[in-house]
């Protein structure tokens, strides 16, 4: 078999790079992480003509090879390291026909690295409407490469791109301009000191904090034959380099591209007039948020009810088909209800990712950033914090990562610290089941009370995030060099394929990730609940029979009592009893206590845990909700889930930091355990106090 061609897709953000990637690979792709860091790594396989295969790596979007974030570092480190297994045989640089000038900056840098580079001009279908015409042959001469007009949206030019990738050996590796001309003397000395290295690579290593091969930043400080320059001189040289490149690019474009300005009247200006308007812009944004939350609550209730009922049935069927015994019990009582607890909220997660993905693809999200920046700054956040805060409603993990493009460290840190307050989808199943239990199904001023409660909980999450940001802004003493640049991309109709792939990938990753934890926890819980220490557990039947010898109970009732007695004296019952004093003032019993403790692995475990504990405690197959409603409070009497204990539980889940994965991500992003520990302690303390006050005043 022939060796695969390694292809790296590189380009500015908003050039439709991902669409090109999706067209090349289809569903033949996988998303992972770069080792040791949380930058998303997307790769896929593409079949080329003549039975050649290409391995396509979709690198994070970057404006240049001068990295200013972790994502951009990935690009540079790969392009500098010839020994990396993903080092590209050929780079495909994706540009957008309307932003060619800016996009070519990155292209010229990659050419200087002497990597064969194909230039893809994407969104070519817009050329006519924008009055742009390009002399492709002339551009190929000027840039010393192959130029391909592509429309990923309309699938134009993709086959030609594949053909060129297969022929990558014919692409010139000659740089198109020599950055060294900005200071010939300096670069000559550099060349003499490291004769075997590419000059531009050396320059990048000098100016960036990256390493490659056996040359790293320090090797420039210890040599006698080459003395580098101080920070600010280097910075000025980088500026000079940028100016030089733009001069070259302007020259090339003057010779090869003509724009008929009369034709270039677009939708963009009109849309911007409304969407970034001082009043209408905010009204529209608020309405979009409202629509999203309504949709998540209303539309997903149907598939969710169906899933809940199906898992109940599945337990029943399993029990019917398999021989009775501990193994069947484990599956029917431990694993199936535990998994049901996670599968049930696939619909909601999918809806959330769908909306977020549409907002980002369409270019609208940048407008929100623009509108919100000033307001957010008052609370120590950035306009760019809006994206993490909104995507935090799906999951805090991608949200924490989305804070990476916030330039200012203080604003970024505050964003990371407060994001876990937003109502992530893992809280949703907890909220939904408790709301269903304690909030009446009535209308208030035409609005569904249960839906209203959910909306209030989301607002509470945002409110708490904003409030604690403000507090942190006042107490954190971090010097900030605040600056802020955001591209305002053109509006696009979101591509079905991109949105679809995004929703599927994100949901899958989420469910598999959470599924593993839930599976493990439900097995542990089941074992702890099904076995117990001492005579109390093993002789449960005899003890219960002896206690009720005169009552002459029917067998079914007696069985129920035995099961409940056993559960109380199982391992988990003993643990639960030990933590009960801590949770009793909040209105919870020991079973909820166990559910809360296991929720520290991940919140969504709550429902699964209760499901497992309750199904061990009873023989009948019921929905989780029915089981919870029939629980009674052993201390106060009456139902366990009342308005007071329900609100208390809702508040606890709204504020508590109960997600190990988020803590791990925060540790990675802030590079210290200090901040995640700070989150864990503070948020949980706030949650405990809020729940305590709520229960004690409402009961």
């Amino acid at each position, binding site marked *: 078999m022939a060796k695969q061609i390694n292809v790296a897709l590189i380009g500015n953000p908003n050039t439709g790079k991902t669409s090109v990637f999706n067209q090349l690979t289809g569903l033949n792709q996988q998303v992972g992480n770069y080792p040791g860091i949380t930058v998303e790594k997307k790769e896929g396989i593409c079949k080329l003509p003549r039975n050649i295969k290409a391995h396509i790596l979709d690198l994070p979007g970057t404006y240049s090879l001068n990295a200013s974030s972790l994502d951009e570092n990935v690009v540079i480190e790969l392009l500098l390291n010839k020994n990396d297994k993903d080092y590209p045989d050929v780079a495909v640089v994706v540009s957008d026909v309307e*932003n060619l000038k800016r996009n070519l900056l990155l292209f010229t840098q990659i050419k200087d690295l002497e990597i064969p580079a194909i230039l893809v001009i994407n969104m070519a279908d817009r050329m006519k409407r924008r009055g742009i015409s390009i002399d492709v042959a002339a551009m190929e001469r000027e840039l010393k490469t192959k130029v391909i007009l592509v429309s990923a949206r309309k699938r134009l030019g993709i086959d030609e791109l594949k053909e060129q990738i297969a022929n990558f050996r014919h692409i010139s590796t000659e740089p198109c301009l020599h950055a060294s001309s900005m200071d010939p003397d300096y670069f000559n000395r550099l060349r003499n000191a490291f004769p075997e290295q590419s000059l531009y690579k050396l320059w990048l290593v000098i100016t960036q904090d990256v390493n490659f091969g056996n040359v790293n930043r320090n090797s420039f400080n210890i040599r006698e034959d080459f003395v580098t320059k101080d920070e600010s001189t280097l910075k000025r040289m980088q500026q000079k380099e940028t100016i030089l490149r733009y001069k070259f690019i302007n020259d090339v474009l003057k010779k090869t591209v003509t724009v008929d300005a009369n034709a270039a009247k677009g939708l963009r200006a009109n849309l911007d007039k409304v969407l970034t308007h001082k009043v209408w812009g905010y009204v529209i944004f608020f309405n979009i948020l409202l629509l999203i939350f309504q949709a998540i609550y209303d539309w997903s209730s149907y598939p969710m009810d169906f899933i809940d009922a199906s898992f109940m049935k599945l337990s029943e069927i399993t029990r019917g088909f398999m021989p009775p015994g501990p193994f069947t019990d484990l599956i029917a009582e431990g694993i199936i209800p535990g998994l049901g607890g996670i599968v049930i909220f696939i619909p909601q997660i999918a809806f959330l990712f769908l909306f977020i993905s549409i907002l980002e693809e369409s270019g609208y999200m940048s407008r929100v950033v623009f509108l919100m920046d000033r307001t957010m700054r008052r609370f120590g956040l950035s306009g760019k914090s809006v994206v993490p805060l909104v995507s935090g409603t799906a999951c805090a993990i991608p949200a924490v990562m989305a804070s990476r493009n916030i330039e200012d460290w203080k604003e970024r840190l505050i964003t990371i610290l407060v994001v876990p307050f937003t109502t992530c989808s893992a809280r949703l199943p907890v909220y939904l089941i408790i709301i269903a239990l304690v909030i009446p199904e009535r209308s208030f001023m035409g609005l569904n009370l249960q839906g209203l409660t959910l909306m209030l909980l989301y607002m509470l999450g945002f409110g708490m995030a904003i409030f604690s940001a403000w507090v942190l802004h006042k107490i954190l003493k971090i010097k900030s060099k605040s600056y802020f*640049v955001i591209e*305002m991309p053109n509006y696009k109709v979101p591509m079905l394929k991109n949105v679809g792939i995004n929703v599927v990938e994100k949901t899958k990753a989420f469910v598999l990730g959470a599924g593993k934890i839930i599976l493990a926890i439900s097995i542990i819980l089941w074992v702890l609940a099904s076995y117990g220490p001492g005579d109390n557990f093993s002789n449960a039947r005899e003890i219960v029979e002896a206690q009720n010898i005169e009552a002459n109970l029917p067998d079914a009732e007696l069985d129920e009592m035995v099961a409940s007695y056993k559960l109380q004296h199982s391992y988990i019952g003993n643990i639960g009893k030990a933590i009960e004093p801590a949770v009793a003032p909040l209105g919870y019993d020991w079973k909820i206590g166990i559910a809360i403790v296991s929720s520290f692995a991940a919140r969504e475990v709550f429902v699964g845990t209760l499901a497992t504990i309750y199904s061990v405690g009873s023989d009948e197959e019921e929905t989780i909700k029915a089981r919870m409603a029939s629980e009674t409070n052993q201390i106060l009497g009456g139902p366990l889930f009342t308005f007071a204990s329900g609100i208390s539980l809702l508040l606890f889940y709204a504020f508590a930091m109960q997600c190990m994965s988020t803590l791990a991500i925060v540790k990675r992003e802030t590079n210290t355990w200090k901040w995640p520990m700070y989150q864990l302690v503070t948020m949980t303390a706030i949650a405990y106090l809020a729940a305590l006050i709520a229960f004690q005043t409402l009961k």
Partner: protein
Amino acid sequence: MTKTIVDLKRGQRGIIKSFSTENIPLKLLEMGCLPGNEVVLVQTAPFRDPLYLNINGSHLAIRKETAMHIEIEILP
């Protein structure tokens, strides 16, 4: 008095002359914010901050505090 981007009215154009600070972010230069290039003020958020600009064909938004340091000549 030198004019800066902050002095532009909506829809008005100017030519970038120079920067009044050493610390102009490299990213801004890479987006095309270079002396000699044209800048148009497209839209402002409430309190004229941030500013939505078209610089050299690139659409981007920057804060007032950065814009204050970009000196321009306003075109009629």
